[in-house]
């Protein structure tokens, strides 16, 4: 069984791990100035919203060229947000979003 790409995985892991580990392993991260703490506290909502928005509105082709996209994904994500805001729970929101997207695509032949 070929193992050539295991070496590629090791190289990819070697450049990924520092991003994940350096802040967690740096001493004193819980004693940062209040302003910096507040900044990092706001990273949560900002980056989760960024992930959601990019995965909803931006599509990339095989050559990683980005293009704008507005489709059923927007409605599905919006439905999930509404359900979560109405305290129906994330799981309910995710199931509803997936069903909506799958149904609309099936009906439209997509």
């Amino acid at each position, binding site marked *: 069984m070929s193992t050539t790409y295991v070496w590629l995985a090791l190289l990819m892991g070697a450049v*990924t791990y520092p*991003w994940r580990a350096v802040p967690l392993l740096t001493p004193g991260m819980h004693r940062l100035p209040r302003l910096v703490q507040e*900044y990092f506290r706001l990273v*949560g909502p900002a980056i989760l*919203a960024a992930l959601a928005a*990019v995965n909803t509105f931006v599509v990339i082709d095989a050559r990683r060229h980005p293009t704008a996209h507005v489709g059923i994904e927007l409605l599905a994500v919006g439905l999930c*947000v509404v*359900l*979560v805001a109405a305290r129906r729970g994330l799981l309910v929101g995710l199931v509803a979003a997936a069903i909506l997207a799958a*149904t609309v695509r099936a009906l439209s032949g997509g």
Partner: protein
Amino acid sequence: MREDLPPLTDSPEATPDSPVPGSTDGGDDLARSRRRLQLDGLGIIASAGGFGFVYGLAARAAGFSPLESSGMSVIVFAGAAQFAAVGYVLGGFSWLGIVVLTAFLNARHFLYSAALAPYLGDVPRPVRAVMAHVLTDEAFALTIAHFRRIGRADTWGYWWAAIMTTFIPWNVASILGSLVGGQIPDPSRFGLDVIFPAAMAGLAVGLVTGRRELVAAVVGAVAAVGVGLAWDPAAGIIAGGLLGPLAGLATPRRASDRPHEAIIVFTPTMDDPSATRPDGSR
């Protein structure tokens, strides 16, 4: 436990979903938040399993052996970078290009790590080193929501989010995909493609507890799409994660915004759900 630290997080108000840290039913708060974490994670399990399977199929089609495809899932454990790597191997890209692209795609993990670090300061360093390896978009999203609900760290919650909802489903499914082979199904047929953005948006909603968080989320989303379209989606996500909090900081709080009174209690509770709070409550 640490009681000498300055306030760090918002104090969630007493709602059914966000109990007040330090309340007398602390053990109930923890148990309730863990149940919610487990429920929220079910959708992530479906998404990770579905895309992990597709990754395994794609890797097999690109000529990866099962050992190579599952090795990449264990060692790199970053879905977007793995899909990109498979595509670039198929396209004949150099390894150097793939490694540089991987570093670029995964740079956002620095922000996750920095946001979680204040909570995990008292977790032993070797444990944090292992935690870092399994830190993904999904693990961060579920964990930060859980930590904010209980106002402190909970290592059991972190492992659940990172291992049970992401690492195991992704790796098991990718092994299955690489062993089964065959035609690659389109996850969008089953609506699986919307689960990830919907989960991120839903968890972001749970973190919006005041005007600053709202501005950070909106600016983060707008900046991410703008930069993502102008340059690259990965750059957009990093831009959103960097610029959103800056905009939030520049936003004055309203008097009605929730006060910053919570104290993060650095108590590893992986095997001890009955961990006590500063006031001695459970």
